[in-house]
């Protein structure tokens, strides 16, 4: 529509609304009539296991030349979740390369994407999940990797050498793997959650109202409703499925008053609640935050034994806005080192997909207690489980609106 036509139309509508006295419904009609949202729709590539994507190499942000070393005295800016990177690993890197690391943290992927998109913060390394990768590449926010620096790349599980979300690993390196299930404390929740016919139902069990939490991550929390109802497509574009999610989430809010957070790994051990939707890495971490006198044996984690649950991995990418891409590559390579990845695993509780960490021996090797062995992620889980995928823009908007309604409180 020509701009003039649009302006003239608005004037006419404005007169009508003013004549109607701008009552609430009239104002609403007026604003709707003025709505001329014109976001140009761009075909967005969405990778999935059945539709792998090889991203084109960025022309604006070329890969760096091989053979360089980090400049002493420079700063490496890292953007990551809180408590998701071992301070010791960072300190050792600083000492080894005489580089100063500045770590900034975020609470959820949406917040992170908003800040990364501003390009103002000059982060060098960012730790997204793979459902963000397509957006980051297509918005030209990433720098392609120079593989010569990643000498530890072969330490990864073979299935991660050429991942479906980034064929040829042009932009990303896998960081951690995790499942999403249910965590609980046996001293606060007498129900044997794992023995229930449908363990997801426990999060709607009013016996635990006011004593539970769900993840403050829209897609993770909403897809749990689908899994509860036996729907395996956790990236559904169906409006019927979305209605189901909305109904059950609002019911959850009303009857259970859940806390919506990503800090369950500290809050559940502290006794704030005894039941929570949880990431496996956080479950592994909970014993370290239990107060003195509480046995680590009280912690439990459930993930479908069939492996048919939510399974994901996080990545490390080099942002084009960063000022220190060489140090960023060195750091990436460092966390693929078996010993350093082990230190990091010990701190974060999140399993690296490296060959050295055999799932069958993680308990024996002391990386996690036996009562939390269900939190171990196996390579086969990525065949049987369901990954969270980037959603088409219209679906993404619709899902976000439901999440917004849930979080607005009612």
């Amino acid at each position, binding site marked *: 529509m020509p701009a003039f036509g649009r302006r003239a139309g608005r004037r006419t509508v404005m007169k009508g609304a003013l004549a109607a006295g701008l009552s609430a419904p009239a104002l609403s009609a007026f604003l709707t009539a003025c709505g001329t949202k014109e976001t140009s729709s761009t075909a967005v590539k969405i990778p999935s296991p059945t539709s792998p994507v090889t991203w084109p190499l960025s022309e604006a942000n070329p890969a760096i030349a091989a053979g360089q070393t980090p400049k002493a005295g420079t700063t490496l800016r890292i953007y990551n979740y809180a408590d998701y990177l071992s301070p010791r690993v960072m300190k050792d890197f600083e000492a080894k390369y005489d580089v100063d690391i500045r770590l900034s943290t975020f609470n959820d992927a949406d917040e992170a994407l908003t800040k990364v998109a501003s390009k103002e913060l000059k982060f060098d390394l960012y730790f997204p999940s793979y459902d963000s990768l397509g957006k980051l590449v297509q918005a030209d926010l990433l720098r392609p990797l120079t593989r010569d620096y990643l000498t530890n790349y072969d330490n990864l599980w073979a299935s991660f050498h050429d991942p479906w979300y980034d064929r040829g690993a042009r932009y990303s390196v896998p960081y951690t793997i995790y499942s999403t299930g249910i965590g609980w404390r046996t001293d606060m929740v007498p129900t044997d959650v794992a023995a229930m016919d449908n363990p997801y139902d426990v999060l709607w069990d009013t016996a635990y109202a006011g004593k539970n939490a769900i993840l403050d991550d829209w897609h993770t929390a909403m897809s749990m409703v689908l899994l509860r109802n036996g729907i395996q497509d956790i990236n559904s574009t169906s409006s019927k499925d979305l209605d189901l999610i909305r109904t059950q989430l609002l019911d959850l809010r009303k009857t259970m008053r859940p806390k*919506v957070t990503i800090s369950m790994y500290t809050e559940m051990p502290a006794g704030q609640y005894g039941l929570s939707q949880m990431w496996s890495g956080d479950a592994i971490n909970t014993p370290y935050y239990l107060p003195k006198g509480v046995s680590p044996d009280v912690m439990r984690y459930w993930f479908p034994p069939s492996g048919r649950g939510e399974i994901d991995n996080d990545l490390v990418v080099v942002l084009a806005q960063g000022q220190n891409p060489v140090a960023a590559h060195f750091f990436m390579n460092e966390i693929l080192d078996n010993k350093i990845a082990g230190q990091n695993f010990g701190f974060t509780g999140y399993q690296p997909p490296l060959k050295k960490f055999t799932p069958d021996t993680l308990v024996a090797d002391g990386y996690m207690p036996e009562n939390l062995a269900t939190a171990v992620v196996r390579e086969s889980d990525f065949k049987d489980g369901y990954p969270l995928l980037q959603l088409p823009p219209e679906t993404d908007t619709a899902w*976000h609106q439901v999440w917004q309604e849930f979080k607005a*409180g009612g």
Partner: protein
Amino acid sequence: MADAESRRTPPGGRRIWPLLALPGTIWIAVLFIAPLYVVVAILFGGVDPILRQPVPVWNPLDWDFTQLAYVWDHIVGPQPFFRPALVRTVVYVSVASLLCLVIAYPVAYFTARFAGRWKGVLLAALIAPFWISYMMRMLAWVNLLQTDGLVNKALSAGGLFDVHVAWLQGHASTVILGLAYGYVPYMILPLYAGLDRAPAAMLEAARDLGASRFETFRRVTWPLTRTAVVVSLLVTSLPMLGDYFTVDLLSGSPSNSMIGNLINNSVLTPGQTGQAGAFVLIILIVSVIPMSLYVKSTRSGTDIAT
């Protein structure tokens, strides 16, 4: 008369005051009007199709009202899911502000009237909470209010009672008490300033004329400090209106969301940033009404004094 006036006004006096006001005017223009225009440009702007980030539109002729319509629809329309958070904000802020007043008024009264040589020390003690960040003070309460925290331990009286109150699990009372605790120092200072200026001679005169202590308070002290009370209520309630981290830290449950949480959630959600602008405008309009009333009341007070 004209001669007397010209004698009081120094040469160039009519120009000097506007000139002196110029830096402040520029300051307000830069730090208030310009950011507000950015908010409006984002509210009425577009959205980047890939990252769903806001694209501000500076020309009002090209403004798009979709985001405002969405927010407005969900406040007054058939699915008003934003409305409860707005109502909750008004209730929480009103109760917390009144609670602050009940706590702050006696403290300020005592400090202004009876503290004597300890006045300075008391004032310093009252300001002391400002030295610690609000966030840190709230985090301290998180520790105290945990199910196995000190508050429940104290209530269990050494194990006599079995107390497992989940204070941090979505209780309105916890949020209101948190707001009152966090903002009460902001109320004490303006109240103290108002009470300290109240002429003691008038209070003594009321007593000499036979008024009881209560009558003296009701008919002299309270009217003299009414402006200070209004100011202190404004000083505390306005920042409370935009507060979101008290709810985040002391509740974390959507059942206690306030308008500040709606703003924060919208800002951090791709595609919804413009809606945050709509909520900001709502707060602005709601804030301007009591501010105008305050300005009107102080102006009429000045007229009476004159």
